């Protein structure tokens, strides 16, 4: 009995020493080092942030930024041959897959919100989207006030409905809320005349319009109902990994490299159909590059 107790103590002490020897590494970095692989979560159709090109390879603005983060991880862990895996995620499963360790970072178009911060962590914002209205030009709708009594569509599972009511000018008007299954459906509702306006992130509207049959028929109008920061999603309370991701992203913003990537994806023809989104940098994004922040939206 006594002997086995001593053995046990010895074992525990050895394990303890072994643990302290590599105490600098915790959380995700430790997991990456142990498994020899990092798994990047990507989206399949978040154009131009993270989507599949003609070869079914994930590409996009967020993917380019994350490639730099992966490079930094390789350097930090001194593992130049680190295996990089990609895992497609959806807006429904991205948070559970992050929590159960399937993915190590998610690079798509995920809004950094206070509610989500209960579950996951976020890097500094690399994009700011504004919620605005996509309308048919021939509808004559120019501002929120024009929506009174009209059907307005948003996509199921997004947070854009309700924003009209919160806007100063929107308080006095009544709209009829409609819901599309996904962004393509919601846009179809505007295109076919079921809805007068599609209230959504302006960059997503720009992508849908650029790919429409007649892009000239549509316009993005009205004030920003809300600005939402997009961040790289990480595991919650993993300070060392978050510090590394933030350092890398802030470095890219300060060196002007992030802006170059922005120009590549937002102001030039992009795969798979060589459509140009023509989406110049907003003042809000310029400010976010000048003073990076990881503050979430309410």
């Amino acid at each position, binding site marked *: 009995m006594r002997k086995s107790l001593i053995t046990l103590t010895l074992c525990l002490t050895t394990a303890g020493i072994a643990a302290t020897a590599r105490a600098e590494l915790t959380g995700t970095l430790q997991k990456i080092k142990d498994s020899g692989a990092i798994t990047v979560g990507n989206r399949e159709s978040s154009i131009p942030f993270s989507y599949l090109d003609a070869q079914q390879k994930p590409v996009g603005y967020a993917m380019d930024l994350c490639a730099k983060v992966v490079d930094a991880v390789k350097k930090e862990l001194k593992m130049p041959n680190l295996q990089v895996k990609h895992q497609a995620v959806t807006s429904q499963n991205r*948070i*559970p897959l992050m*929590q159960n360790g399937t993915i190590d970072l998610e690079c798509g178009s995920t809004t950094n919100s206070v509610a989500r911060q209960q*579950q996951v962590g976020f890097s500094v914002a690399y994009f700011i989207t504004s919620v605005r209205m996509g309308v048919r030009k021939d509808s004559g709708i120019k501002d929120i006030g024009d929506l009174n009594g009209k059907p307005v569509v948003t996509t199921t*599972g997004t*947070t854009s409905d309700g924003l009209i009511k919160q806007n100063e000018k929107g308080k006095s008007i009544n709209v009829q809320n409609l819901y*599309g*299954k996904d962004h393509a459906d919601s846009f179809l509702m505007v295109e076919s*005349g*079921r809805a007068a306006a599609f209230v959504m992130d302006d960059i997503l509207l720009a992508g849908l319009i650029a790919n429409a049959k007649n892009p000239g028929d549509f316009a993005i109008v009205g004030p920003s109902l809300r600005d939402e920061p997009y961040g790289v999603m990480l595991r919650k309370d993993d300070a060392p990994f978050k510090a590394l991701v933030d350092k890398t992203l802030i470095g890219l913003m300060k060196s002007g490299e992030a802006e170059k990537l922005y120009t590549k994806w937002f102001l030039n023809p992009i795969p798979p159909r060589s459509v140009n989104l023509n989406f110049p940098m907003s003042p809000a994004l310029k400010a976010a590059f000048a003073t990076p922040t990881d503050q979430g939206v309410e």
Partner: protein
Amino acid sequence: MNYHWDWLFFFQEADDGLMYYQWVLFGLGWTVAVSLTSLAIALLIGSVFGVMRTTSNRWLITIGDAYVDVFRNIPLIVQLFLWFFVLPELMPPKIGLWMKQDLPYFVTAVIGLGLFTGARIAEQVKAGINSLPRGQRFAGLALGFTEWQTYRYVRLPMAYRIVLPALTSEAMNVYKNSAVTYAVGILELYFQYKQIIEKTSQVLEITIVITLAYFLVAFATNRLFAWIETRSQVPGMIVGGQGGK
């Protein structure tokens, strides 16, 4: 897995002034409304087409078969999209616009789900009638019944009893299939599920609650039909009708 459990979020106020548990209840209300209305449409249409397919009129049989083949072979979500997006464009512009702007989405949804389920019920009703011995019809005719009266008083009362277990499954399925109607803008349970996930990120709590809600309505329907089965038994006619017990 470091999940942040928080069951109390159901009692938090959402941005429309209601609490999240009320969202779930409203969603459940729409699910039940869509399901029961669709089921009523389906039972009516399914019975009519099912009977048509057992008559001796070649035209009625062809129409009945065509309906069942078309509606059983197209996925439900595609059918809903056909009613919702395609049909208004095929109509004269004025009617199309009315369908798009004034016709409640509920109507489109229950017609879509009703016709889909109706095709399956038509198949079951036909099977039930065909399972009866031919002599039952002859006996009815010999008593002086018209063809219709043999259906009304002899064949259908037996056929429905025979296919009641299959109809029970169909009635339970309609609740589960009703989740698809979120795709045409019905604010039912699955819609609220997606909305609540997006607003609160409490994925596991809401998934558990929604799963239980679907289970409860489907199971309640199962028990209701089992009760009907027991109550409508004709002693000695169908062996082993234990009402699903």
